[in-house]
């Protein structure tokens, strides 16, 4: 069929047109073989242009579309949807990225950026000449979700999924649910303890018929893909004993809510592990909770003064944990408030790097100030020094708030306000190949557009495993992730990308190279025409193309990225 291609070149409100001369791009492609019309636009993704494209496609009977704009990660699906609405099969759409690849990459060389943009658009046109209609691969989806981790995020996600009508397996490696929340004395902004909250949460799920709670279980392996994951579970109730049978569950989506661990200070970090009286925030909370006398007694003496050192294991200058752990300023202040409520005469010092009690949590900070807690801010690169003198702990610190004066204080307990770190032995990430961010927490696809989805289709993330969060923030993300997982499984049917690899049976000699190269285990061997040949599972293949170059007989092609298409694109680019 004769190709009739429409090309749209986006200014991106200056993001592109400040560096790329888009009018020139338009001129240089006008009249290219099969290009029927070429236009520039302020915002290709805007409603006005989308309407324009829609009417162009209908009026001119276009059967190929190119939009030269930002990264396909952002808007490939936007423009595919426009084609589809205009009655054109969406696989006739080809995306050219002239923002990340031209204008932003070459902002110091405008003519060069323009020239590159022209080539990129021409290559996209060359590809569009081959474009054809494809049908998505339809698969059935299991109407069930596995939630991994039963901290507050996992429990709430399970409850929400069940309330929306999905079957849920809630899997927890410990023998009881609640996770880190169990160790919190008082969860701000409310006055409930962590345990009380967990009790309420268990009530919410205990009578839910849709939820199968599997405490004391770990996943040992996972396979399959969106709509149809198979997880193997192993019970670990009795340590040292391995007498639990393996269990298999089959779900449409996996919601990962494996939480965080508290940073454990190194031996000697602010005297930790060396001086009695140096404890972490979690240990301090336990100490405080255990007090039932009139005075605070710990480490064999009466505790009259407590110093909190903030940002331990977070915002590190030298170490790897560059990030702020978000919850700990307010958590430390909350513990200090608990302390002064129980023992009003305590002297309380806060050694901070600038208090981050954001939002309404500022009220806690104000209250601590009102009660007379002393706030000191030490310079980022000059942390306090802890020494022991006659059974007392001496802290030396420079205080920014008083013109960098050197202060010295005696204290009975030093609380290290430890941050959040990713769970160290979390095998979930490796089983599902979940990407991690710079901070080593699991990474979302896009912080604003797709905040609870991962690069692995069908696997969502919630709570602190995605990055530090307090309890309420974890629940928000859990409910959002539940809504996402629900939308994947609720209809029982899913459409997958038809852009997959396929094998030319005549050429294939089954050397096994492709199956070794495939990162998704999509290739197996079958017997056909009296010989062994490779077979590609369409619903597992991600169309990554890893199998193509390793095939010695060139027997594998990728739909919509065939050798011919790529060669034509390269021909244009090397003009």
């Amino acid at each position, binding site marked *: 069929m004769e190709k009739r291609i429409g090309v749209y070149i986006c200014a*991106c409100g200056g993001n592109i047109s400040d560096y790329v001369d888009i009018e020139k791009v338009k001129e240089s492609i006008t009249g290219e073989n099969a290009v029927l019309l070429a236009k520039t636009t302020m915002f290709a993704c805007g409603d006005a242009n989308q309407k324009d494209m829609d009417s162009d496609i209908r009026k001119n009977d276009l059967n190929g579309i190119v939009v030269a704009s930002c990264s396909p990660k952002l808007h490939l699906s936007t423009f595919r949807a426009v084609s589809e609405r205009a009655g054109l099969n969406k696989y006739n759409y080809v995306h050219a990225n002239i923002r990340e690849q031209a204008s932003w990459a070459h902002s110091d060389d405008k003519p060069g950026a323009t020239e590159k943009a022209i080539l990129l658009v021409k290559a996209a046109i060359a590809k569009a000449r081959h474009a054809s209609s494809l049908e998505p691969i339809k698969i059935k989806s299991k109407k069930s979700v596995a939630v991994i981790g039963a901290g507050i995020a996992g429990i*709430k996600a399970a409850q929400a999924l069940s309330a929306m009508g999905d079957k849920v397996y809630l899997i927890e490696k410990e023998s009881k649910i609640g996770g880190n929340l169990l160790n919190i004395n008082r969860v701000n902004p409310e006055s409930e303890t962590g345990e009380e909250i967990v009790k309420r949460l268990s009530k919410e799920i205990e009578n839910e018929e849709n939820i199968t709670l599997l405490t004391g279980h770990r996943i040992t392996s996972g396979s399959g893909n969106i709509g149809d994951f198979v997880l193997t579970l192993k019970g670990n109730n009795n340590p040292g004993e391995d007498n639990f049978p393996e269990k298999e569950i089959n779900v449409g989506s996996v919601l990962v809510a494996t939480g965080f661990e508290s940073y454990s200070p190194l031996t000697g970090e602010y005297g930790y592990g060396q001086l009695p009286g140096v404890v972490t925030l979690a240990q301090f909370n336990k100490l405080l909770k255990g007090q039932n006398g009139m005075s605070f007694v710990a480490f064999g003496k009466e505790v009259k003064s407590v110093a909190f050192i903030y940002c331990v294991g977070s915002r590190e200058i030298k170490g790897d944990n560059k990030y702020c752990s978000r919850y700990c300023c307010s958590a430390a202040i909350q513990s200090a408030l608990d302390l002064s409520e129980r023992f009003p005469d305590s002297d309380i010092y806060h050694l901070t790097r600038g208090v981050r*009690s954001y939002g309404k949590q500022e009220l806690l900070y104000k209250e601590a100030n009102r009660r007379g807690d002393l706030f000191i801010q030490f310079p980022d690169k000059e942390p306090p020094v802890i020494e022991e003198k006659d059974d007392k702990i001496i802290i030396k610190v420079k205080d920014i708030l008083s013109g960098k004066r050197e202060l010295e204080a005696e204290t009975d307990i030093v609380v290290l306000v430890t941050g959040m770190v990713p769970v160290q032995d979390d095998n979930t990430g490796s089983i599902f190949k979940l990407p991690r961010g*710079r901070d080593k927490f699991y990474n979302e696809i896009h912080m604003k557009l797709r*905040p609870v989805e991962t690069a692995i289709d069908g696997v969502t993330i919630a709570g602190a495993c995605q990055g530090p969060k307090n309890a309420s923030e974890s629940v928000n993300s859990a409910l959002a992730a539940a809504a996402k997982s629900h939308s994947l499984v609720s209809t029982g049917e899913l459409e997958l990308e038809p852009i997959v690899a396929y094998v030319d049976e005549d050429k294939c000699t089954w050397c096994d190279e492709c199956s070794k190269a495939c990162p998704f285990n999509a290739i197996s061997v079958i017997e056909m025409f009296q010989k062994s040949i490779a077979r590609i599972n369409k619903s597992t293949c991600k169309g990554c193309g890893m199998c193509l170059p390793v095939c010695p007989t060139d027997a594998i092609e990728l739909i919509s990225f065939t050798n011919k298409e790529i060669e034509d694109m390269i021909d244009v680019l090397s003009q």
Partner: protein
Amino acid sequence: MEKEKINLFFDAMVIGGGIAGGESALNLANNGYKVIIVEKDLSIGGKMIMLSKVFPTLDCSACITTPKVSEISRHNNITIFTESDVNSVVKMGERHFRAEITRRPRYVVAEDCTGCQKCEEACPVIVKDQYQYNLIGRKAAFIPFSIASPKIAAIDIENCTLCGACEKACPSNCIDFTQKALDYVIDIKSVVVATGFKLFDPLKIERYGFGKFKNVLTSMQMERQLAPTRPFNTILRPSDGKVPDKIAYVLCAGSRDDSEGNPICSQICCMYSIKQAQLLMGALPMADITIYYIDIRAFGKGYDEFYEQAKGMGVSFIKGKIGKITKGERGDLTLRYEDVSTGKIKEARHDMVVLSVGVLANDEAVPMFRSNTLLTDPLNYIRQEDPIISPAKTSIEGVFVSGTASGPMDIPDSILSAGAAASQATAYLKRIN
């Protein structure tokens, strides 16, 4: 004669079409529910559609918002009423609310307007453009802004002189001065309140000189100057159109301040100021940028790294609260502050000052609810009944809160909160008893 009211039915009504309201509506619509969004403004998109780029990824805000907005406005399950007010909401029973809504007239037939801007060109009346935060003017016949949704004209009847020029200029004859407000009665099963936040009014802090000194701007005005749909083609100071080269940011303007009645931290202004500083360094490589702060609250994923990046780029950070801003020579400004690191009172000259104004509650939704009381917290944000385990739950069963209506939040947090509201509303709609 009694006016006739039009009766419609939906599963959910979302009040407010900002990013939070839009996201909640989209989630519900994708679950198969019929949703109506009631927006008081001429366009949906809220504050986010007006922003430049967004921290910490520096995505262009329009590039993220416009496709969302266009997805919302095309969705088969979503109906949008812009330029509309919810007059009342009465709970009739479980999963049944009745709302009365007025659609104010636009004086333009929406279906026929092509957004050609001919009326705008013809109109002789010029007033301040609220969508550019008064940096420039607009006409009385106008399209709100270039990426508005719907992108159609409206007549600002208060300023219109009824000269008729627009009517003559309009090629599709869609200007209609006889349009009347339309009243609707809407039956719905659940409500999502996503009315967002208000910005602190800097006129209230007289010593900062906003309104008196032209080169004292708000952060929202700076957002507009930095946006792709910006009013000028570069950054200009309003007094003389000069490109500034010594810009100051005053953080916590109207936040963490008991004397202004706003004791809490606004949660977003440290970060958006750092973002603007980075964008300014890109736009004006020679400019000096100083941020005066109390504490830098860079707490989210990637935020502290973003802060460190700004320091690395050469943005100066001075810990100190600004006492007073006075006028210097040629439109310049003198900032008097206490430099915390030395304990001394100092003065600094800048040629442009940006006030990083804080977030205030918008409690307009409260009086809408007639049969049951929609409770607020002491700062007038919609009260979360169970903030830890049911963050979207309000004092009325079946009414949920989404985004900054319940407290200050940045965009990522607003979107998660919107997802939570949608999921709790879905559960409520599904519940049988």
